[in-house]
């Protein structure tokens, strides 16, 4: 099961990376970047999980519960915020490019340059 999750993390990352390399549409490139970033988030979450563990929360917890590792979840949240910030700026740049060139195709834009 754990192997499967690590497997899907790497497939997600590679899908994102492939999209970044092979897609010409800048919007699709941004989406591919988000996909790759989500694989990192998934990886952090997997690393924090222990078999049969509960969330690391003492509210309503009972004695002897096994809890997931908290710092992995903190890192996952931080990575999400990073992703949101970078994606927002990328989208803003795309809006600007669309205003200039009336297209979001990367190669087209480079031809018009």
């Amino acid at each position: 099961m754990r192997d499967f999750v690590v497997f899907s993390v790497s497939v997600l990352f590679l899908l994102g990376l492939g999209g970044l390399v092979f897609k010409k549409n800048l919007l699709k490139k941004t989406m591919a970047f988000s996909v790759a970033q989500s694989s990192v988030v998934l990886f952090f979450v997997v690393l924090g999980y222990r078999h049969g563990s509960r969330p690391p929360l003492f509210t309503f917890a009972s004695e002897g519960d096994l809890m997931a590792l908290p710092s992995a979840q903190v890192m996952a949240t931080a990575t999400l915020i990073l992703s949101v910030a970078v994606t927002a700026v990328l989208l803003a740049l795309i809006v600007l490019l669309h205003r200039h060139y009336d297209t979001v195709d990367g190669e087209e834009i480079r031809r018009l340059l």
Partner: protein
Amino acid sequence: MVSRRLFFVAAILLFVGLLAAALRSPLVCDLPRDVAVDGHYLAAGQMETQANDLVAAVGFDYRSFDLFALSGLVIASSASVVALLRKGGRRA
């Protein structure tokens, strides 16, 4: 176009194969592993920070220096998007 796709598929297959080979070796997720730092958070974090949510305890107390980077990211992205897009900003 077709060659590109073929290349992409080949790259994925190669990586998947490498990963499958790597998983045979003792890897990252071998559990139970030594959880020294997280073990400290789980054992003493509640009393040290007086917070029931250990994610908040770790994120806002133990690793609080990260908050500079996180709030900086929020401010930076909003400042740059506003400067790039706001009306009266750039004209086409």
